């Protein structure tokens, strides 16, 4: 009975856990360097071991919001063959926002005590 429930429980927890992670992954992708939407998508899916999936439309919508609040900007660059591509990057405020967010919310997972617990 318990075993039967486990996948469902895990899936439910993961669904909740993943909500709110997209911003972090987009920001990490851009911290890694300027990228166009396909590259951001590829970065997120690859680096999250395919646990995070995102639609292009969702990425565009989020990037427009971040651009509107001045944490992300873009510049047009020549694509390989087709038209110009929008290469997104973090603005200084975006980089600072990510840095503070990491310090406050992510770094605590790297304390010796928590690392030990995670590895136990």
């Amino acid at each position: 009975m318990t075993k039967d429930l486990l996948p469902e429980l895990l899936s439910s927890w993961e669904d909740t856990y993943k909500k709110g992670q997209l911003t972090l992954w987009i920001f990490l992708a851009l911290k890694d360097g300027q990228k166009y939407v396909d590259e951001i998508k590829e970065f997120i899916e690859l680096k999250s071991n395919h646990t995070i999936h995102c639609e292009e439309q969702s990425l565009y919508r989020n990037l427009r919001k971040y651009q509107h609040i001045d944490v992300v900007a873009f510049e047009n660059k020549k694509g390989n063959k087709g038209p110009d591509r929008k290469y997104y990057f973090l603005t200084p405020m975006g980089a600072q926002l990510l840095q503070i967010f990491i310090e406050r919310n992510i770094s605590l997972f790297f304390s010796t005590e928590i690392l030990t617990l995670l590895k136990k």
Partner: protein
Amino acid sequence: MKALITTNLMKFTLATLLLTLLFRFGLSTSITKHLIIAVVFSAVIYAILMWFNGRYFGWKEYEYLPIYDIGFRFHLATFLSHNLISILWFVFGLQSHYEDISVIFITAGIWFVFLFIHLIYYLSIRKSTIKDLDKKDLFE
């Protein structure tokens, strides 16, 4: 302020101007010819098309950039477009002999009260936004 006047809002306003023009034409013609059913028909069709107009461009607007204004910009655009066309209709003498411009002003006055309440509500919810985007919907 400039960011609040979006392409979708402009398209919505243009469609509203056109629909109001057609509505006024239908209304004045029906009144002149004493076609009561056509008067009702014009109003109902106008209301339905305006609903689709708002729904279509409102949705496109939300999908593009979810500006959190509880529909105030679209309401204001409708108020201005409708009353502008209505007043111009009388200025150019296109109304029926049975129509009186005072009806336009009375309607606009009553409508303005609701628009003002909407404005107050909009200003109050702006506190929960960052650059006109809902704080709770900003990061996913």
